[in-house]
């Protein structure tokens, strides 16, 4: 029989890990500004590993800015960010980012397979070129989003939904542990919406942590187990059934919210 010896300290650590879930992302006192206009005002929250969080708030609430500030793509004035309890030194392969579709130039001379392979560039490393193995991984990711037949298609010839699925495949191929998605559902067709949902479910079942900026309030309870309400300040964060209430939504959107459909959606939760 094989034996593994561990020290008491290691044993305690192991137990602690099994009892307390790992915090995937911990944000402390995060503020950010464009010129002198404050767009994020001292946000503090921490997100547990394996959760699916919808980031919800009105236009200009700083949802995209928050993601960019967390990833270091946007300068932050104050605050500290800790990933996976700060135990990870090299994070690049653990973070996945799906930007807004409009953030890139779709006339760029490249094809679908190439864009998906870009998700692997961090793992391939300097002075190496993508090979057969990487292309295979990219094709597999494309299959998951029903885009494999488009692998050699020029990216300028894709519909909005197809573009979004390519981005999703690129995130999947990264095989990260913590994903940030900026409005993946914006302006996509029904087929793409279904694909995104199944991908989100798959990621969650694998224990990945996902933050999704989301606009459609109706679908929040169905898609996400946690919700983060944001309007420059953090309004509320927690499990959807406790947090996604009419009161907190009113607080998030001010007086602007018009509740379409039945009043019960939020209250029945």
């Amino acid at each position, binding site marked *: 029989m094989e034996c593994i010896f561990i020290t008491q300290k290691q044993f305690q650590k192991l137990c602690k890990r099994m009892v307390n879930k790992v915090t995937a992302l911990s944000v402390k006192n995060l503020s950010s500004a464009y*010129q002198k206009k404050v767009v994020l005002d001292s946000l503090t929250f921490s997100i547990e590993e394996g959760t699916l969080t919808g980031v919800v708030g009105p236009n200009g609430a700083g949802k995209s800015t928050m993601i*960019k500030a967390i*990833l*270091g*793509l946007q300068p932050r004035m104050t605050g500290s960010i800790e990933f996976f309890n700060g135990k990870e030194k*090299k*994070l*690049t392969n653990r*973070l*996945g*980012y799906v*930007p807004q579709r409009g*953030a*890139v*130039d779709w006339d*760029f*001379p*490249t*094809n679908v397979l*190439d*864009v998906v392979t*870009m*998700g692997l*560039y*961090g793992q*391939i490393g*300097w*002075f190496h*070129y*993508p090979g057969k193995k990487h292309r295979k991984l990219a094709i597999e990711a494309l299959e998951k989003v029903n885009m494999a037949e488009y692998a050699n298609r*020029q990216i*300028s*010839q894709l519909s909005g939904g197809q573009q979004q699925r390519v981005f999703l495949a*690129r995130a999947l191929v*990264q095989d990260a542990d913590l994903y940030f998605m900026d409005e993946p559902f914006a302006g996509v067709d029904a087929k793409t919406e279904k694909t995104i949902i199944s991908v989100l479910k798959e990621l969650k079942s694998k224990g990945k942590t996902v933050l999704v900026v989301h606009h459609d309030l109706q679908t929040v309870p169905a898609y996400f187990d946690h919700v983060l309400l944001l309007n420059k300040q953090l309004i509320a964060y927690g499990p959807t059934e406790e947090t996604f209430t009419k009161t907190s939504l009113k607080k998030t959107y001010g007086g602007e919210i018009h509740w379409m459909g039945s009043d019960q959606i939020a209250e029945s939760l």
Partner: protein
Amino acid sequence: MSYTAWILLTGSLVGISCGLVGVLLILRKMAMMADAISHTVLLGIVSAYLISSSLDGGSMLIGAMLAGLLTAWLVQWFESTGIHSDAAIGVVFTTLFAIGVILISTSVGNVHLDVNHALMGEISFIPWNTVHLPVIGQIPQATLLLMIITIIVIAVIALFYKEWKVTTFDPALAASLGIPVLLMHYVFMTLVSVTTVAAFDAVGAIMVVAMLITPAAAANLWTDKLLTMLIISAVIGAASSCAGYGIAIWLNTSISGSMAFATGILFVFSYLFSPRHGQLAKWFHKPGEI
């Protein structure tokens, strides 16, 4: 090698190096930056001359690199304080260029460096200013410099090919993958600066912009693959240089002007006849059927 052969080789090297750098320039939507750097490089060259009091390739390159980086950094800095990028570029490069012009006419005096030469270049003088190399023998100084720069450009693009691709297409993804986007930006600006200064003697500050932008813009019409675009752009650049020299001899006119004119002709040809993005192709295909 004959006089004409040296000129054709020099022109082709300008076409290749500028054509390659130009592809990344237009894909990064930084065509204006090329215009800026091609002018501020003058300040770098003049300052290098004033400090080292020689016009050799090395000090000119260093001066140009520093001027190019200064331009890129100043533009970036103005942008970060809220000035629009096109205005920032316009302000920075005209000011730095003006300082260069003032320095030439007040401090440099009567050397080979003059404003006209800087703007228009003089490729026909190049074969006369030679250096001796061990194996190769006599080689024009400007041609040697261009050879070195062309090799550097090809090496830097090839070695960091995937990094250039991802930082150009999706800088945010690149940053999240741990690729130093800002550093790559400054490396690229350095590449633009050294390419510009190497091509400077041959075609001058104004024409070098044509060599940087037009072949790349034409290549973009022929292909949807980055690698193919780089190759086509280099070929168009080299071909325009040679064709331009032919036109200049035929019409007995400015060589650098003819070269830039040739890039324009090749662009118009591409614009009309390229199979997918050309205007004629668009005419014959109804919208929707690509």
